[in-house]
């Protein structure tokens, strides 16, 4: 046992030496995550507010004016222009001076006065789908608000005290991320992407490099067992993966005030299982890939892209095509993104994320078994 530890230690020490001697590698595993974090959190914002808005009032009544004031007052909309014809909508959308147009038809106040449902056109520039969707939602919410306000006025006019019913106090809430800050949403997901890159890519590449150098051949004739070599190779990357988790959590908390509401240990266990699953994938790639370049591309394809696109990180999973949703189940990232956001934002603990933890555990086990078998087969030929 002591001898096995000496042998594993020799590999671990060597791996860290490689890392220390290769500034690019160090850059890839420590500096890149930090840069990605800053880039995503500062530069790429999915926040939607101050949407430039064009309003056109064909009714020109006190009622329509009051309705449009709702938009003026809202922080989500910036009324940038008052138009007089529909043609201005096209121009404004083309010039990007406005993304939303609110059109109040003539007869608006008359319809309201006759207790019928009044219609307002809300045109949304769909060329930026994310902003479009949110603007639409806000506009609907404002309309409801206005509707409620009208009801209240009607009640006032009838001499009823509605506040005693407590029915009409308007509230709009976004749960879990009340300020709708995208950094809160992005950073827990980004952690998963970074973990996937560090573990899958780096393990695949270091193992293939060992084969190319002929050093693996050398180790096979030594007393070192294959399992010792594997543990020694994977241990440093496990450590670095956890360093990255700590780094991202720390920076997210201090720089971006990302809350950590849930059970930290649930996150840690999830991250550990995810790392094992990813190491298994890396091992599998190294067993299959004939060259370093192929290993790199394969790692890109099965680690980076799915964890970026099919995990819920960049696109909500219920909004991608159904067949892609099915594919997403085949990659561990979706489970981990769900755990990470659950713990960070929803205050989840083991009780809430156990289904994902179990999925990851099964995934990790299957991956490590398959890849060890493949790895063994490859080197015995």
């Amino acid at each position, binding site marked *: 046992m002591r001898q096995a530890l000496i042998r594993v230690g020799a590999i671990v020490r060597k791996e860290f030496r490689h890392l220390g001697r290769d500034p690019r590698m160090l850059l890839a595993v420590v500096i890149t995550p930090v840069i990605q974090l800053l880039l995503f959190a500062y530069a790429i914002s999915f926040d939607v507010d101050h949407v430039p808005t064009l309003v056109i009032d064909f009714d020109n009544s006190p009622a329509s004016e009051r309705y449009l004031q709702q938009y003026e007052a809202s922080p989500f909309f910036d009324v940038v222009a008052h138009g007089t014809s529909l043609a201005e909508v096209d121009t404004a959308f083309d010039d990007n001076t406005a993304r939303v147009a609110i059109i109040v038809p003539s007869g608006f106040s008359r319809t309201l006065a006759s207790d019928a449902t009044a219609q307002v056109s809300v045109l949304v520039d769909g060329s930026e789908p994310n902003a479009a969707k949110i603007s639409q939602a806000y506009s609907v919410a404002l309309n409801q608000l206005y509707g409620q306000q009208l009801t209240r006025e009607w009640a006032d006019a009838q001499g009823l005290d509605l506040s005693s019913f407590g029915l009409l106090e308007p509230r709009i809430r976004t749960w879990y991320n009340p300020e709708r800050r995208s950094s809160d949403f992005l950073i827990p997901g980004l952690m998963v992407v970074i973990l996937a890159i560090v573990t899958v890519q780096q393990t695949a590449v270091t193992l293939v490099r060992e084969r190319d150098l*002929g050093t693996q*051949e050398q180790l096979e004739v*030594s007393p070192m067992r294959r399992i010792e070599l594997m543990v020694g190779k994977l241990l440093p990357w496990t450590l670095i993966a956890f360093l990255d988790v700590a780094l991202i959590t720390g920076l997210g908390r201090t720089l971006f005030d990302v809350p950590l509401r849930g059970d930290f240990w649930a996150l840690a266990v999830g991250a550990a299982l995810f790392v094992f699953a990813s190491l298994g994938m890396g091992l599998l790639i190294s067993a299959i890939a004939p060259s370093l370049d192929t290993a790199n591309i394969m790692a890109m394809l099965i680690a980076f892209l799915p964890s970026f696109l099919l995990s819920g990180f960049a696109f909500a999973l219920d909004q991608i095509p159904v067949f892609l949703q099915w594919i997403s189940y085949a990659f561990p990232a979706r489970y981990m993104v769900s755990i990470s956001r659950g713990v960070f934002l929803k205050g989840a603990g083991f009780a809430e994320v156990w289904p994902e933890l179990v999925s990851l555990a099964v995934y990790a086990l299957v991956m490590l078994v398959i890849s060890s078998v493949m790895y063994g087969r490859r080197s015995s030929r």
Partner: protein
Amino acid sequence: MSDTPAISVRGLTKAFGDFTAVDGINFDVPRGEVFGFLGPNGSGKTTTIRMLTGTLRPKSGSADVLGEDVVRHPDKVQRRIGYMSQKFSLFEDMTVDENLRFYAGVYDLPPEKFASQREYVLNMADLVGRENELTRNLSVGWRQRLALGAATIHEPELLFLDEPTSGVDPVARRQFWDLLYDLASRGVTLFVTTHYMDEAAHCNRLAFIYRGRIIAEGSPGEIRADHMEQRIFDITTSRVDPALQWLETAPGVDEAYLSGASLHAVVPADSPFSNARLRDRLAAAGFADAEVEEVDPTIEDVFVNLVSRQR
């Protein structure tokens, strides 16, 4: 214990699919010998080494290494053998010292053992004072010696060397063989594969492997005597290519091939050719400057001859 041969192989066979890479070979390597395992590329040399070092399972046959059955118990053997490949297996981004330390860790040497072995290896490889130099900055000859040091850091009783001198200049090859003799004089058995035929003469014993079969075995002298009934003429001329073409079809010449800068012509043992008569024939064919001298067959001549007989 030590009168058992270092290696004893019986009927060893390995097939990859339909291709039989090693086909029922037999040989013994006595302890303390330098055993040369010769053959062209793809003839089964590396496959044999991999079976003898316990990294490849044979299809059939037995292989005893240092008295242990290496097929069944590779772990009993692996600590006592060393292996050096033509790739040298060094980490170029690590220093001389770090490489040695790494291999010492792989063989879990205790620290005091490592200290003395390190001392020995650095002296042997002439690397004292360069311990902290990156391996990638060493020239090929130094790297080769360092690789030998790393492969022997655990003092193996038997060392396998797979084409250890390929890509190394002649001077460095010479120095390397001196180191191998030094190891042999300390009682280490050496199993060396090479395709440099001149190196074969450095070995105590040789085996030729061709298409997975051993076609000759013995000391260099025995092999020359046993397998070379024919006579060899060494021919130098300024017009090498046309002369070779002429010789290949000349009556009374069994075979002709390039050997270094000159040509070798093989004739039957009872051939009437002498130096003068062959020179006259060459002059008559238009090679007036040809010089002819009958020579003793080299290992290379024997090997070319053996291979041509197999075809």
